């Protein structure tokens, strides 16, 4: 068997569905494709919305508290600062998602597509590895400011403030540490291997080979029939 035989074998391989002969099967296939595409888009939309809404809800809570305190005539700059931090997180998420949606989805070649997929994966990897800076820390700081504000008002003794602050810090750390670990785990367990695999594929595609031996080159100049 030579390469022509292989080509013939490959090209004549029986295919399980013959939509040409069955319009009902074709319609069913298209319905399934459309449903899957919609489900995919819905998943992305809800994921983006969920993350933004979570930050916005935290902002609304702190803003509400700050407004109430302002209306009561008390100093409320700590609470306004606490409200601004999650708002910044929501803004960051929104801008990042809008930029991701604006990037061209379809590359002109497989090589360009690999580059695009790699850039996306590296971006996601960076986001997860640095989640502490753009998500956890601002929200934790906002929570800390809110708690500090409450303690300053309700506790007059310094030992009480220190103990209370310590408890608050421990609570914030207890909530945020597992989230930080989960994000790092996702980045190293799932994204990093995919990046490595795509980098290998990208390198294999782009690799400039040494010039082949002259006889091999002459044998291979004509396109595969």
């Amino acid at each position, binding site marked *: *068997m*030579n*390469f022509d035989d*292989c*080509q013939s*074998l*490959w*090209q*004549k*391989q*029986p*295919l*399980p*569905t013959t*939509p*040409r002969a069955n319009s009902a099967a*074709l*319609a069913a*296939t*298209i319905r*399934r*494709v*459309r449903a*899957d*595409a919609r489900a*995919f888009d819905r998943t992305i939309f809800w994921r983006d919305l969920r993350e933004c809404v979570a930050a916005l809800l935290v902002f609304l809570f702190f803003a509400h508290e700050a407004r109430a305190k302002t209306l009561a005539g008390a100093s409320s700059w700590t609470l306004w600062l606490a409200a601004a931090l999650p708002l910044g997180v929501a803004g960051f998420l929104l801008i990042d998602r809008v930029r991701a949606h604006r990037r*061209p*989805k*379809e*590359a*002109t*070649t*497989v*090589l*360009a*597509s*690999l580059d695009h*997929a790699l850039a996306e994966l590296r971006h996601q990897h960076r986001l997860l590895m640095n989640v502490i800076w753009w998500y956890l820390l601002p929200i934790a700081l906002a929570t800390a400011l809110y708690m500090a504000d409450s303690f300053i008002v309700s506790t007059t003794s310094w030992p009480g403030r220190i103990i209370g602050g310590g408890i608050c810090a421990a609570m914030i750390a207890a909530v945020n540490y597992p989230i930080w670990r989960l994000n790092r785990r996702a980045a190293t367990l799932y994204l990093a291997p*995919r990046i490595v695999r*795509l980098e*290998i*594929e990208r390198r*294999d*595609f*782009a*690799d*400039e*080979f040494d*010039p*082949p031996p002259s006889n*091999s*080159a002459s*044998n*291979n*100049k004509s*396109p*595969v*029939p």
Partner: protein
Amino acid sequence: MTARSPDPESLFAEWLVEYGGIPRKLSRAYAFEAIDVEELHQEMLVQLWRSLPQFRGQSRVSTWIYRVCLNTALTGQRERRRREARVVPASDPSVDPVCPEADPAEAHERTERLTSLMEAVRTLPPTERSLIVLALDGLSHREIGEITGQTENHVGVALLRARRKLTAGMKGLVHEL
């Protein structure tokens, strides 16, 4: 005809009839188990549907379909990736019996040969696999280059290497590739 036609669904149906074999064959080359083949095939169709509005008609429809399907196969992240390391089963469930109406012995032999070819193709690294699959489908070096983004010469050299590996993978069945 381009994707700017008023009815993308009709266009998609037309393409599915005309070029439906492309995602079928590519999914067989990139997934090992029957369930994964179906999953990858469906993933390719979904990507084709989602990419349809971006088709500008600057390349041939078949070239575009090859490109989208290969992108899906190479950059996909489904469960099948974890199964790829497994040993390929002796009887390949994704290969259907060849010409059931023909002489059973001949049909059996062809099925065996196709299974061997499929197994040899699947042992290649993903990038070389894509070149071999495109070549097996009868595409020229230039057409393969248009799809992958490589130069014609580069395709030639890489394909030669891939064909050698394919030969090694089909020891006893292929005399010369």
